């Protein structure tokens, strides 16, 4: 067993995915099988190998100049909002303090 139901719930929590009990069980089984295959990587000798996070061609950085561009504007920004206030996005009350 490579992953437990507890770990599945933890990971689902981190990813903000609500899962019911049946889903937790099913995904646990799926992920367990997949992770077992992932163990293949343990066979490979990667000592001294530089990790390859991106495909790099030695491109120049392509930095942007500090010149303002036309923004989208409020209308367009809120056009697809599920809930909005006057000019704002709206979410359930955030309790922090």
């Amino acid at each position, binding site marked *: 067993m490579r992953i437990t139901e507890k770990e599945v719930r933890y990971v689902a*929590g981190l990813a903000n995915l609500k899962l019911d009990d049946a889903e937790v069980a099913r995904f646990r089984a799926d992920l367990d099988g997949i992770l077992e295959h992932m163990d293949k990587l343990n066979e490979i000798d990667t000592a001294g190998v530089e990790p390859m*996070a991106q495909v790099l061609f030695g491109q120049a950085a392509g930095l*942007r100049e*500090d010149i303002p*561009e036309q923004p*989208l504007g*409020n209308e367009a920004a809120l056009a697809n909002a599920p809930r909005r206030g006057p000019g704002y996005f*709206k979410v*359930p009350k955030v309790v922090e303090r």
Partner: protein
Amino acid sequence: MSLSASAPATPEAIARYEPVIGLEVHVQLATATKIFCGCPTSFGAPPNTNVCPVCLGLPGALPVLSREAVELAVKAALALNCRVRPQSRFARKNYFYPDLPKGYQISMYDEPLAENGYVDIVLEGAPKRIGVTRVHMEDDAGKLLHEGFRDSEGCSYVDLNRSGTPLIEIVSEPDMRSSDEAYAYLTEVKQRLQFIGVSTCDMEKGHLRCDANVSVRLKGAERFGTRAEVKNLNSFRFLKLALDYEISRQVALIESGGQVEQETRLYNPDTGETAGMRGKEHAHDYRYFPEPDLLPLRIDEPWLDRLRAAMPELPARKRARFIEDYGLREYDAEVLTATRAGSEYFETVATVSGDPKSAAHWVMGDLMGLLKAEGKEISESPVSARHLGELVGLTAKGELSGKLAKEVFAKMSASGEAPGAIIEREGLKQISDSGALEKAVEDAIANSPKQVEQYKGGKTTVLNFLVGQVMRATRGQANVAVVTELFKRKLG
């Protein structure tokens, strides 16, 4: 959650412990546009107007790094004596919050922009070096509003104008041992960054934000105690108050047999206390990984040299130079180098007038007084540095009496004119020629027989009255020293 259930710590108890403080400072860079997109960073725009697909986190949007943000960040690192890495890498810090549109912040993790720096502070004459662990770049989140709307009971409002604003994070070594040291460190950092134009560092506007990591240990102990993070320190005053409270709280807790928890606490300015934040589950599993949408940032020697050459003189150097070259007192040099704008203003006045000491006097006195009265910054001064320099120069050369100079200064601030123009027009030039003043002196003697009697009788102080008569007659233009000499000669 820790409750303040233990009895407050006594000064004796506190004296047995040594606080260990590190500060994390976030500084908003003074660029015109955001770090990864061309949206303006201007303050006070209506909500969600300075936004675009990139800073809104729309599907398909990609970040493009701003050159100006990099250069300001590098300058900040240089001003903090850091070593700038030839290659640094952005990394994603993943967490969910409504003010974080992408669901991750683009920051830097194990390859930051710069490392291993320091600043020197002076506390009660004793210098101390505070280490700077690292400086890195990241994008700011938006703003949440929890009150002020009809439905604020149940809703929070999200404004993403600020999302994407360029920030640098400056992490200090845990080298500070008191709230005063922390205060001095933050002051020094703020001054340097303001000085080189990297940021306004205006804490009220949120351009400079500070979090503290605080722990205590018995004096002489080797290991660090458990540390708590303290947030919401949005003024220098609160920083000191919060640190003092937290140190005391931790000492009291330990003394009463409790243990300091590793947690995040918020400073409450109303109660003066820090309080643990409610359960932040998964708060620390940010799952950092290298940002695949950005290339590694390469800063080669030629670029670094160009930036070094473009660095303005730092405050400490300027202070030393003012003392050495201009003969200023240490206190005056400090006041005059408090801000870059102020120091440049002063230096112009000093150079134009040719009399740095008088220049210092005028800038610290009359000019600062004027600015304070009118609620203006030095950059908004109604009297230009050049003009003030001319005024001080005229006074130094004896062409304008001190008293009249003040009047001219007032006129200059009202009209913005050069002193020369005002003096010319109103004929205010100081009269120092004894020949020209002779008549006025004789007139005064003739018109004030009583006072002349008193003077001849030995009451020398009455000379002031007689001099005053001449000053009035000449509308203040007479050179007091010359007039006084003339009276003494004529009256014996």
